[in-house]
């Protein structure tokens, strides 16, 4: 039973309810930061950290917080963890801090976090909320890092900041521009949906056969 629930949460977070490709939440950093895969990883880690912490705290306080001030309380808790993340990052990872720029404080208004607080943490026990935070964050991280790798490779001819070859020899600068961000994201969502649809159809066909 417990293992089943664990599997369910994990699968929901990373694939079935993938925040980036399926729910299309937290789009701003997804578009803004995917020019470099390294900052995607950093952003993913920051979001995951905030997500786990806020889910845990909100789940703990879910019976204490009155319904009326639910949203302000969630926002305050989330803002606290974002500020905390920002402080630690500025102190120990200044490079990452400056490459995330304005998107770091904007984690506060990242729909994924408030969304999970509202729809999951506020009526689920602590352990499950923590797991949900972990896997949702993981789903987000994997998604934007994938996009980051693709855009960085095509636009800058490099991988995780390591130059593969001189970008003047071959690279498609378009993918580094804002237009490239929209196109890549659109195609990723389309691809994700197509694959998911195909899998579902297969499963249906299998069920029908059986």
């Amino acid at each position, binding site marked *: 039973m417990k293992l089943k629930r664990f599997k369910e949460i994990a699968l929901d977070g990373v694939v079935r309810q993938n925040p980036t490709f399926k729910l299309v939440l937290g789009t701003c950093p997804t578009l803004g930061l995917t020019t470099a895969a390294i900052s995607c990883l950093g952003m993913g880690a920051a979001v995951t950290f905030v997500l786990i912490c806020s889910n845990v705290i909100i789940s703990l306080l879910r019976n204490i*917080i*009155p319904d*009326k001030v639910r949203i302000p*309380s969630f926002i305050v*808790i989330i803002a606290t963890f974002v*500020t905390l993340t920002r*402080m630690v990052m*500025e102190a120990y990872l200044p490079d990452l801090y400056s490459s995330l720029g304005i998107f770091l404080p904007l984690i506060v208004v990242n729909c994924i976090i408030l969304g999970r607080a509202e729809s999951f943490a506020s009526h689920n026990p602590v352990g499950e909320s923590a797991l949900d935070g972990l896997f949702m964050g993981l789903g987000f991280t994997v998604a934007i890092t994938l996009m980051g790798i693709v855009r960085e490779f095509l636009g800058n001819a490099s991988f995780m900041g390591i130059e593969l070859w001189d970008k*003047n020899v071959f690279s498609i600068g378009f993918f580094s521009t804002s237009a490239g961000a929209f196109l890549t994201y659109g195609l990723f969502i389309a691809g994700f949906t197509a694959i998911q649809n195909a899998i579902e159809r297969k499963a249906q066909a299998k069920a029908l056969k059986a």
Partner: protein
Amino acid sequence: MSKSSSFVTSLKTISVLLIICIVCGALLALCNDLFYIDEETKFNRAMQKVYPEFERDTSVSETPLAEFKDLAGAGSVSKVYRSKDGAYILEATGVGGYPDGSGTVTMYVVVGGETPNVEIKSVLITGNTKQSWIANITQKNIDKAYVGKNIKDVASLQMGNDYKWGGATMASTAIMNAIKSAVNYCVTALKLVSTPESEARDAAVALLEGYTLTTVVDDAYTTAVGANFYFTGTKDGADDVDVYVFGDKESGHQIVALKAGLTHADRMLDTAIVAKSEGIDNALVQSAQGLSHIESQIRALAPSFTYDVAGDLSQYATHSDFADTQITSAYVCNDGTLAIVAESTVGVFEDYTPGKLTMMVVIANGKISGFKVISYGGHSYFDGSIGNKNPQLYVGSAIDAIEYVKVSGATGSGVAYYNIIALSAYYARSISA
């Protein structure tokens, strides 16, 4: 009953929110003490991206000295940060990145090393205006062209294929200008290395106190004169001089400073004569050494050349026909050419007074062979007639046949020109008689 319970509920609601806020605020305050980074560290970190060993040394002013900011004439230095290891990070902007003269590239230039091997350690472009094609220049291109070069060499760099990149030649120019501004600042203001140019500049600045000198590169006059360096100088924004420096530090610098536009080195004779008549201290030729250098240059061109004071000024310096006009000095060369410097305050015409006109008239073979306006009252009527048609009308005339020529639009100044030229002719006739 229900009213008081709703009051209790809302009190509870608000107090929960308040408690959450207070706890969060307290937590943040605590963490802030734990993770606080002071401004100094933040600054060092930001700068370490430009130069990894950077550690700010605030004992040196970080605002560049105004007179050295814009030495190359094509860019400027806006910040100078010193690192504790002796290296400097300069923030410089170069212009010339766009055909109309606008278009800039801003960058950090890191300069460091032991004298005399001070070199460019890195260059990092941070911004630009109107440089759409700058992406064609990669960091590798710039590193290869500039990094590791001794700043002595970079200071006098000329644009060439090694520094120009396809598709972005204008941006290349702005980049070079920015780097040269930074390097020139290091040489002249910070004195990290001494180049022949910086030595010449130092000597000239010592002589011309308070002047700011700008290097003029590859000037035709420098070549014609054989001067090693040519600067233009300003003082308080207005007092322009042209400065030629001959010789080098070992043999001694010879410096000639001329009022800009007054005369140029292709008229060495004028310069020498004006210097003798007006006095060396009169901002024309600033040192006796410079004057003797001019004389030696002239003699090199014409070995038998000498010149001397000609005639007796007390006798023929004025004439009743030419009111308010007098000769201040006169020289005769060994070939008989006369150079006469005279001044006139006539030229009052209707309601304007043009002021004093000082002019040199050169007379050779009984004819007016040339002239040189030394100074004038600054009236626009002189501006219109100066150096061109009005005195030019008399060139070639025999000294015993000078006729007043009226030029409309420059009638008053025309009288002054005529008086000086005619008085000079009279003087020439008198002393040769």
